[in-house]
C-alpha cells in the first residue's frame, strides 16, 4: 500500500487561482459586449491587442528568468483585459501594446510576479501611458459616430463646461469615455456577479460606493452644479474601479477593517480629485495611492484577539 502522509486538512475546495481569474474575465463580458456595441471593431482590436501583448510579455519575462510559464493561470490575460477597458477606444495599437508590456513588467514582475506586486498592474500600465502620451490618453471619441470625432467625456464636460450629461446616457453607456467604462449597467451586472460568486469581497466596493454616494449627495445639496449622485456613480471609471480594480486582492488590505478604510479612502480621494483638482477624473490615481498605503493600513488594523 502506497500511502500519502501530509498535514491536515485532507479536503480542499475546488476554487483555484485560474478559476478566480476566469470568473473576473467572465464578469467583464457584459462591459466587453457594451464596448463592442458602442465602439465596434476598434474595441475588438484594442482588447485583443492588450491581452496578447500582456501574455507575450509575461511569457518572455518568465523565459528570461528561466521560470515555468504561468499563462494558464489567466492572470496576465486579465491584466491585459483590464488595461484595455481603461483606455480610450482610439489609442494607437503601439500605445496599447506598450501599456500592456509596462503593466506586466513594471507593474507585476519587477516585484516578484503574481501575488507580490504592490500596485494594480493594469493601473500601473495606464499611469505610465498617461505620463507618456497624455494627449492620446485624454482624447475620446463619440460612440455613435462612424469616424473618430473627438468628444469630451461627461466628467470633462461637467468640470470645464458645466454641462451635466443625462443619467440615462451614463447608465446605458452611450457616452464618450474609456472602452469599458461607459456602460454603468453592464459594470454593475459584472460587479454583482463577482460578489455573488464570492470572487471579490464586498467590503471594498461597498465602502467605496457608499463614500462617493454620501459625498456627492452632500455636494449636490449644496450646489447642483457639483453633479448628482447618479452622475458621479455612473460617470467616469468609478464602477470599473470599484468592482474590478479596488477588489484586486493582491494590492488591497488583508484585514477586514483595513478593507473598509481602503474603500473609504479611495472614495474620498476620487471625489476630492473630481471636485477640486485640475483633473476631471481620479479613480486611477486614488486606487494607486491607496495601494501604496496598503502595507501601512494592514499594520494598523490587525484584528482584535479572540476573547479579548
Amino acid at each position, binding site marked *: 500500500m502506497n500511502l500519502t502522509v*501530509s498535514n491536515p486538512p485532507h*479536503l480542499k475546495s475546488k476554487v483555484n487561482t485560474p478559476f478566480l481569474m476566469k470568473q473576473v474575465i467572465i464578469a467583464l463580458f457584459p462591459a466587453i459586449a457594451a464596448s463592442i456595441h458602442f465602439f465596434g471593431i476598434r474595441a475588438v482590436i484594442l482588447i485583443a491587442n492588450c491581452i496578447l501583448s500582456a501574455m507575450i510579455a509575461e511569457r518572455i519575462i518568465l523565459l528570461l528568468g528561466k521560470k515555468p510559464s504561468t499563462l494558464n493561470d489567466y492572470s496576465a490575460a486579465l491584466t491585459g483585459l483590464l488595461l484595455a477597458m481603461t483606455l480610450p477606444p482610439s489609442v494607437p495599437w503601439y500605445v496599447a501594446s506598450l501599456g500592456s508590456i509596462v503593466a506586466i513588467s513594471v507593474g507585476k514582475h519587477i516585484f516578484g510576479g503574481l501575488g507580490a506586486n504592490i500596485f494594480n498592474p493594469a493601473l500601473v500600465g495606464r499611469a505610465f501611458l498617461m505620463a507618456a502620451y497624455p494627449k492620446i490618453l485624454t482624447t475620446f471619441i463619440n460612440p455613435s459616430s462612424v469616424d473618430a470625432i473627438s468628444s469630451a467625456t461627461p466628467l470633462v464636460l461637467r468640470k470645464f463646461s458645466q454641462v451635466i450629461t443625462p443619467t440615462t446616457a451614463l447608465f446605458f453607456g452611450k457616452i464618450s469615455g474609456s472602452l469599458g467604462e461607459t456602460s454603468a449597467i453592464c459594470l454593475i451586472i459584472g460587479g454583482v456577479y463577482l460578489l455573488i460568486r464570492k470572487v471579490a469581497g464586498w467590503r471594498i466596493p461597498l465602502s467605496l460606493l457608499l463614500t462617493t454616494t454620501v459625498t456627492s449627495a452632500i455636494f449636490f445639496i449644496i450646489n447642483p452644479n457639483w453633479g448628482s449622485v447618479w452622475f458621479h456613480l455612473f460617470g467616469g471609471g468609478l464602477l470599473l474601479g470599484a468592482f474590478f480594480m479596488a477588489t484586486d486582492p493582491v494590492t488591497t488590505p488583508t484585514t477586514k477593517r483595513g478593507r473598509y478604510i481602503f474603500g473609504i479612502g479611495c472614495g474620498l480621494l476620487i471625489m476630492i480629485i473630481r471636485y477640486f483638482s485640475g483633473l476631471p477624473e481620479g479613480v486611477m490615481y486614488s486606487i494607486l495611492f491607496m495601494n501604496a498605503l496598503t502595507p501601512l493600513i494592514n499594520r494598523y488594523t490587525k484584528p482584535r484577539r479572540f476573547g479579548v
Partner: protein
Amino acid sequence: MIRIAEYKEPQHNSFSEKFHDPSKLYLPLSQHTGAPSKPCVKKGDQVSEGEVIAKASGAISAQLHAPKSGKVIDIANWYHPTLKKAPAIIIQCQDEKKEYSPRKDKDIELLTQEKILKTIADCGLVGMGGAAFPTHVKLNPPKKIDTLIINGCECEPYLACDYRLMIEDINKIFKGIRLISKLINPKEIIFAIEKNKPEAIKKVNLLINTKKFGLPPIRSFVLDTAYPQGGEKQLIQLIIKKKVPPKGLPFDVGVLVHNVATCFAIYEAVYLDKPLVERLVSFCGDALVTPKNIWVKIGTTLQELVDRKILEFGKEPKKIICGGPMMGIALNSLDYPILKNAGGFLFLSDQVDDAQEEPCLRCNRCVDTCPMGLLPLEYVKRVKKGEYASLSEFNIVDCIECGCCSYGCPAKIPIVHYIKTGKKYELNSK
C-alpha cells in the same frame, strides 16, 4: 466558518455493528491529554477484561484498562497517531466475554458526588470528541458552571459515530447528562446538534419534552451545518455569545462542553461500572466497499479489521486518516491502534487532493473564514521567510488548526502545515 461537502452518506444511515473479538490489542499509555499512565502489569501477566493495566500518574492523567481478557505479551514502543511511536501494552486476547449488568436508577440517585467522580476517574474516561482531556478533571472545574453544553455537532465531514449513538442510545446519553448535572449543578443545559442530523434532533427533542430525567432546564439548539462549530470555543460563542479568553478554558465563561459519546461513557461507567474499553468508530471513505460504524475494543489495529474482513477495500487507499478529513492525522500504515478519542478513520482513494502550491494572492479567504479571527496568510509569509520571532505578534498560539484556511485557499497553500511549523518554533523558544 465554512460550508463543506458533508460526505456523511452512507455511514449516517448504517446501523452500528460490533467487533468484540480481536486477537491482539495495542494500548498506548498516552491516550489522553496529560501525563502518560504508568503500567501496573508486566510481561507475562494474565489480565481480565476491565482490569486496570496502567494507572493515572499526576493530576491530569487517566487510568487504562484491559479491553479484553488475555496475556500481556509485551510492553514496547508501538505506532501512535500523534506521537508516531510510543510505549504501549500489548495483549494477546482470549475468547472470554464479560457481562456488565446495569444498576437501578434509584441506586444511582443515592450516589454522592464524590462517588460518581471517583467512578468516572477509575473508569479512565477521557473526552471522546477528540481532545481526550481526562473527564474527571473536566467535571471538577474550579469555577461555578452556569451552562452545560452537550456537543452533538459532529461538524467534521464523513464522521457519523456521534449521530448513530444519538439515534441508537439517546436514553443512555441522557442518563449520562443527568449524572454530569448532578456533579456541576448547571443553571441550564443546551443540547447542540447540527441541522444535518434530523433524526437525532427528533429523538433529543422527544426526550426533552418527556421531562423524565429530572434535569435542570434543558433545550436543544439546532445549528446550521458549518465547520468548525463543533469546536468548544466556537460552540460557546455561537450559543451563549461569549468568547473564551486566550489561553482560557470554557469554565472561565461559566460553561462546560461535553461530547455526546463522553456522556454515553459516563453512563456506562457509573451504571455498569464499565471502564472505557470500547467505543463507536466510523470507518468511511471511498476506498471502502461499505463504510460502517463499528463498536471496537480500544487498541484494535486497523490491520486486524482488514485481516478479519470487517473492513474491505474496493479500491486501493491512497490516504488513511485517523479522525476527520479536516483535522485528522494521515497514517503511513494499517498498524495503528484505535485510541479512546478516535471517532473515525478515513480510507481515501480518489478523493485525495494533491494540487501544487502556488503563490499567495492575498485573496483573504483564509482571513474571512478563520473562526479565531486570525490572519493565516501572515503566518505563511513569515514562516517561509524564517521570521519566526514576529509570529507571536499575530497570536499564532490562538490557532485551533481547524483547517478552514487551507481548505479554501485558491493557491492550494498548506497553511496549517506552515502554522504547525511556526507553532513548534514558538513553543521551543519559550
